[in-house]
């Protein structure tokens, strides 16, 4: 091994594969290459470590080590601390937890929300994980899921009706987010196909729709939903506010999805369509089997980006008076018993949103890796 550098050992054609030089692989190699390879890299590494040292220990102290978890009100909380107001008072969040989760959903009916959440997990699983045994049959359940949960949450047909104005908290976020995400994707794909179609009337219609929705802020659309839509409907029709919000959020996200998917469609070489055509596949079969699977794969980062944006934008319903987690947080802070604990509230909400969005982001990376099939074309 020591004389592996002397090269004339082997007859031509018999040179074996030798291991790479030490310190280029393994942990040492990685640390050297990524953290200390150049003077600038060394400086950046040290600065990074220093910044982490400044931020992480005090944050841990505040949020976990010194924090207070049980108290009746803020003064009791502060009394329990070494220095008042220098640590987190999670007792506040604990006392409001049901409000944060269920909003004003009637206490006796909260099992319906819990059941819906369990059902949601079972609906997401077959969608996200394609190796699930019997996935084909699960899909029927997935298709029925929105109606099942809609019935569970709103009631009627044997269940006590619950007004949608009593929805709130994380449950409201999930209702808007999941509905928006699951309906905007198919609608967005349809719009993208329409916009790239050869039929001028269809194309113009799709372009007008997409450009209108993209040109108007979501808040404006939500105001339209909450105030103006009644003028356009026949007098006397009552149209649930939540329903109107769901429609607006879905349309809004669909327009963005459409543009992302259109980008993906343009990334598919013309030869793919020609190959599908030459095999006798019809337009729809070619789209479904050849074009869309490839276009959607390219579009995954953009689609997930849109979904994450949509999910966070659900907090905008606060402006038209719905009580999403931010709305609940704000009204909780108005309580004199707990006033002044804004940091705890907003950090708590931020962590909830971060976990959801980070989950989506990681899933999209997993999906990209899974769908990678060697070099393209």
């Amino acid at each position, binding site marked *: 091994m020591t004389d592996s550098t002397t090269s004339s050992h082997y007859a031509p054609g018999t040179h074996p594969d030798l291991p790479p030089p030490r310190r280029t692989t393994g942990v040492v190699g990685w640390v050297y290459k990524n953290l200390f390879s150049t003077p600038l890299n060394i400086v950046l590494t040290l600065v990074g470590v220093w910044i982490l040292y400044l931020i992480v220990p005090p944050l841990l102290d505040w949020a976990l080590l010194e924090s207070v978890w049980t108290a009746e009100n803020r003064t009791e909380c502060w009394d329990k601390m070494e220095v008042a107001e220098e640590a987190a008072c999670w007792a506040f969040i604990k006392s409001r937890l049901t409000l944060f989760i269920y909003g004003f959903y009637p206490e006796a009916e909260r099992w319906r929300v819990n059941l819906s959440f369990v059902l949601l997990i079972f609906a997401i699983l077959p969608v996200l994980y394609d190796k699930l045994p019997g996935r084909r049959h699960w899909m029927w359940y997935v298709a029925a899921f929105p109606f099942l949960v809609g019935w569970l949450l709103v009631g009627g047909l044997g269940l006590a009706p619950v007004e949608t104005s009593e929805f709130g908290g994380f449950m409201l976020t999930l209702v808007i987010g999941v509905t928006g995400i699951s309906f905007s994707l198919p609608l967005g794909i349809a719009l993208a196909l329409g916009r790239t179609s050869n039929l001028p009337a269809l194309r113009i219609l799709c372009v007008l729709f997409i450009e209108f929705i993209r040109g108007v802020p979501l808040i404006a659309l939500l105001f339209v939903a909450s105030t103006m839509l009644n003028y356009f409907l026949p007098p006397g029709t009552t149209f649930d506010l939540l329903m109107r919000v769901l429609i607006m959020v879905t349309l809004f996200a669909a327009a963005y999805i459409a543009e992302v998917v259109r980008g993906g469609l343009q990334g598919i070489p013309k030869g793919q369509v*020609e190959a599908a055509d*030459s*095999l006798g*596949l019809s337009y729809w*079969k070619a789209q479904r*089997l050849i074009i869309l699977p490839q276009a959607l*794969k390219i579009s995954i980062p953009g689609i997930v980006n849109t979904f994450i944006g949509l999910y966070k934008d659900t907090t905008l319903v606060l402006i038209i008076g719905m009580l999403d987690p931010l709305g609940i947080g704000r009204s909780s802070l108005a309580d004199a018993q707990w006033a002044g604990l804004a940091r705890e509230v907003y950090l708590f909400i931020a962590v909830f949103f971060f976990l959801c969005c980070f989950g989506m982001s990681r899933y999209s990376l997993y999906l990209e890796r899974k*769908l990678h*099939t060697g070099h393209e074309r």
Partner: protein
Amino acid sequence: MANTDQTASAPELDSKVDTSESTISIRGMHKWFGDFHVLKDINLEVTRGERIVICGPSGSGKSTLIRCINRLEEHQQGSIVVDGTELTSDLKNIEIIRSEVGMVFQHFNLFPHLTVLENCTLAPIWVRKMPKAEAAEVAMSYLERVQIPEQASKFPGQLSGGQQQRVAIARSLCMSPRIMLFDEPTSALDPEMIKEVLDVMVELAESGMTMLVVTHEMGFATAVANRVIFMDGGEIIEQNEPNEFFTNPQHDRTKLFLSQILSH
């Protein structure tokens, strides 16, 4: 040469009579790309089992001509009848003809998101409604014929160019086409891979397949073609059986072209 063929399209028997000789019949066909007159008054009769090589300088319209035969390009004047069915804007006819006419492209155009086997079984399953297991069996037999059955579960991106092109040929054959179109099948290949593709094509020709091949492989033309067609400027300039075509070209433009491609 025209065996008693068992045509499925029974209602078209009468139109079949005058085309029993020609499996492809192109008459007075013109095509324009915008203002550019790319094909001018093309007349071509192809009999069953005939192997035709089409050559000519780039931009002469040879690719466009064979792409008109399965309507990847639309012609604007004249008529094209394939296997008794005339190509019009009728989508049904187009799909029938496309499922009877196989095409192999310069850049293979395999579906990168599907395995080699799935590439081959897709059209039989979705167009011919063949059961999955049967389609897989047929596909494996054709993959054996092009000598890459061991690659069936790989993705196209993992294969060499020559292997990809052989898969593309197998994919077309899985539809049991009556006619095969080849659009410069070896032009995008590294030199050492050209032979493996040509070997498959020669074998196919020997099995009696009707073939139209756009290529500059003059060795292939001499070996298997019944007829060589020379195109230039959107016209068929000259056609002849290969030996005569190469040794005794009639037209000046043919002579010039041959001197250019055979000079080294």
